[in-house]
């Protein structure tokens, strides 16, 4: 963080014509009014800052600079001093966050609500006329004209979303849900006009605009769901700080977005940071953790000339690297290609609502056509026959269908969101509900992904702790954390990639690799540290990646859901076998390459299994996008989070069964809603065919069915509370 704040972060400022600029940051931990005023005032007091505005709802701070001298690094340091962690937003990403579509939809919803309410005001007196109340034809005519005046422009304006989508779909030679909706709205308006012109008693202006209003509610909910998931996913990625520290010719570091690193650039990587792009070590030596890339749990030591993959974690020493690939090429090309193929396969997935529409459209349109033709042939006359055909289209309107799925999915994802599980799309939830086989990655998913001491001897830990406290190396920090606060050794010298040397109570001691202490390394692939005082026996500290505490419970919970469990890992057979034995998984394979992982998933798919892949590393990205559904923990690399359908931010593995349970419940509710819509249509269609539907019945039936479907969806809010 300190390194980052010192660099030049100009690339994150969106410049304007006057030389000033705009910067967007994600600020964590600010929740109250006090935080908001503290942040805004402190940032505003900085030189060259023209405005600072904190959005408490989204946690984003927008800073406007008056001149080119405005310093983003100073803003970040100020926030850090106030105690908030700030991450920068890429300007291109920040711009994409403006929600134009949402505003347009909200306006359309407002116009439709106005139209529905006011058309209803003129329609109600005419309904009175339907029940034998006194209403002269002239008054009815006036009311209809007034209703037409309000409803027609409103329905045409608010319905644009549906008309455009229907037109686009027809031009591709398909019929989506918006085609019957558009036909329904336009035909209803047309028939109503012709009725009023011929002084008829049945005009449906209010029904047309109410239909648009109800359907827009569903559309708006769907949009909000996608928006929330998208922006939450972007926040997660911003937290991973996509900044590389580039060195210029004078040796100074500049923070640049990773995407701007070119082949041949020199990049500095501090201990604890990830390697930004594929690169070769130019200077420095260190230990590197490849767990994210290959799944191997043991770290390797690197020095000048060694090649590193992006995503690897630098553990101990500062490294100077020369980039050998740009960011987009840095993920292994094969993995990227696999991800693309997977995404295409997923694009072909037909959503529940579209499957319902494929059934609904031909049936209802044939029925309406048959009513018209049959009525005319049986002697009703063309006008009455057309009116009945229109009534069929109106009462069987897909209102409930259009609301059935979005209402359920918004409620379900809202609940999952509060449980720390982020769902990227409604389709993802539908696919997750169909899963019957779960494949876990080992490192970082089944296990915690960081080393724990296997042989904790309190006396030994207490002896080594003063040295361990002086280092940022993760293994040393594990020892220091176990010992708790205490003294720090004096005159500590850290040799990157080797270990530490220092004085503890006046005695010289070393903590580090076996070679650093002059002893023989222990056998096997275990991660180890040695500790000893000068001239005395050295002691061995063995580390291993521990199983997550809830791994075994998760596996049995999944079995209880009727889902089989398998582990596919890139790690060695020893640690994988041990972890699987502890977690209760009998089906496992070790030493797999990313390609083999994806191929294993393909093979399962070919046998007709619906696979859920849970993985976090770069080696899982291909498998994640090949699988029917996928989940990744919030600690996963960017590529995996992008490939996954769901991201769980809580450190609990039981998020997996919870999400499956919720997805299945959502599917059940959606199907219930479809069943209800079908039942309603079965009752309403014959009524319309035999001319028993009047504008009043149509209005009540339409609103009633939509309300019922929405209420059924809201029952999802209580789902999953009884676990």
């Amino acid at each position, binding site marked *: 963080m300190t390194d980052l704040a010192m660099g030049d972060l100009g690339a994150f400022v969106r410049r304007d014509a006057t030389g000033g600029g705009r910067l967007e940051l994600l600020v964590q931990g600010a929740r109250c009014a006090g935080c908001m005023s503290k942040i805004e005032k402190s940032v505003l007091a900085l030189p060259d800052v023209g405005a600072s*505005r*904190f*959005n408490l709802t989204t946690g984003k701070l927008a800073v406007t600079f008056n001149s080119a001298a405005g310093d983003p690094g100073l803003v970040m340091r100020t926030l850090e001093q106030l105690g908030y962690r700030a991450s920068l937003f890429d300007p291109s990403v920040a711009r994409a966050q403006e929600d134009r579509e949402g505003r347009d939809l909200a*306006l359309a919803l*407002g116009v439709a609500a106005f139209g529905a309410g006011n058309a209803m005001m003129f329609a109600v007196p005419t309904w009175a006329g339907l029940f034998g109340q006194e209403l002269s034809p002239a008054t009815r005519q006036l009311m209809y004209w*007034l209703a037409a005046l309000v409803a027609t422009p409103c329905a045409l304006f608010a319905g644009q979303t549906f008309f455009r989508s229907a037109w686009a779909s027809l031009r591709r030679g398909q019929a989506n849900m918006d085609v019957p909706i558009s036909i329904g709205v336009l035909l209803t308006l047309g028939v109503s006009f012709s009725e009023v012109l011929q002084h008829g008693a049945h005009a449906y202006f209010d029904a047309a605009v109410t239909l648009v209003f109800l359907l827009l509610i569903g559309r708006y909910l769907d949009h909000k769901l996608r928006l929330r998931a998208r922006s939450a996913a972007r926040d997660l990625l911003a937290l991973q700080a996509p900044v590389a520290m580039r060195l210029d010719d004078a040796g100074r570091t500049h923070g640049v977005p990773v995407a701007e690193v070119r082949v041949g650039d020199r990049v500095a990587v501090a201990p604890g940071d990830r390697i930004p792009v594929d690169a070769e070590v130019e200077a420095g030596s260190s230990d590197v953790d490849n767990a994210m890339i290959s799944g191997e749990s043991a770290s390797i030591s690197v020095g000048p000339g060694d090649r590193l993959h992006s995503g690897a974690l630098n553990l101990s020493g500062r490294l100077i690297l020369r980039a050998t690939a740009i960011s987009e090429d840095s993920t292994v090309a094969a993995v990227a290609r696999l991800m693309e193929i997977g995404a295409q396969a997923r694009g072909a997935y037909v959503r529940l609502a579209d499957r319902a529409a494929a059934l609904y459209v031909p049936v209802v349109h044939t029925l309406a056509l048959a009513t018209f033709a049959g009525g005319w042939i049986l002697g009703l006359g063309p006008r009455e026959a057309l009116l009945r055909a229109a009534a069929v289209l109106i009462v069987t309107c897909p209102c409930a269908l259009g609301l059935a799925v979005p209402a359920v999915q918004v409620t379900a994802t809202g609940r999952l969101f509060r449980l720390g599980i982020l769902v990227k799309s409604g389709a993802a939830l539908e696919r997750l509900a169909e899963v019957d086989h779960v494949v876990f990655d080992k490192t970082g998913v089944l296990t915690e992904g960081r080393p724990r001491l296997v042989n904790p001897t309190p006396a030994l830990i207490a002896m080594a702790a003063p040295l361990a406290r002086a280092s940022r190396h993760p293994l040393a920090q594990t020892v220091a954390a176990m010992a708790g606060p205490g003294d720090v050794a004096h005159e500590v010298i850290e040799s990157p990639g080797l270990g530490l040397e220092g004085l503890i109570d006046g005695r010289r001691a070393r903590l580090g690799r076996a070679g650093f202490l002059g002893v023989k390394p222990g056998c096997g692939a275990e991660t180890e540290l040695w500790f000893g005082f000068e001239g005395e026996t050295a002691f061995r500290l063995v580390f291993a990646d521990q199983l997550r505490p809830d791994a075994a419970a998760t596996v049995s919970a999944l079995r209880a859901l009727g889902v089989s469990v398998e582990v596919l890992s890139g790690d060695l057979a020893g640690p994988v076998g041990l972890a699987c034995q502890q977690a209760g998984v009998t089906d496992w394979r070790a030493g797999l390459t990313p390609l083999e992982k994806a191929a294993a998933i393909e093979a399962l798919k070919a046998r007709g299994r619906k696979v859920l892949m849970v993985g976090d590393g770069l080696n899982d990205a291909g498998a994640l996008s090949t699988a029917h559904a996928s989940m990744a923990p919030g600690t996963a690399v960017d590529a995996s989070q992008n490939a996954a359908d769901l991201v769980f931010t809580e450190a609990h593995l039981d998020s997996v069964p919870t999400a499956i349970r919720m997805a299945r419940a959502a599917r059940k509710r959606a199907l219930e809603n479809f069943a209800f819509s079908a039942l309603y249509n079965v009752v309403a269609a014959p009524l319309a065919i035999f001319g028993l539907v009047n504008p009043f019945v149509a209005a009540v039936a339409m609103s009633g069915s939509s309300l019922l479907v929405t209420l059924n969806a809201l029952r999802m809010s209580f789902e999953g509370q009884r676990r």
Partner: protein
Amino acid sequence: MTIVLLLAPISLLLALTGLGAFWWTLRSGQYDDPKGDATRILDDHLDDGPGA
């Protein structure tokens, strides 16, 4: 019946005013930060208008 001819336009005008007000709130970004706006009004030093 003449009263209807008078009342109908008046009620429509009132409703249109409401719709116009809704359009204005949308355009001026008053739904962008509901949580923040609720607390801004309580602090004299904060800018209490909606964000740009």
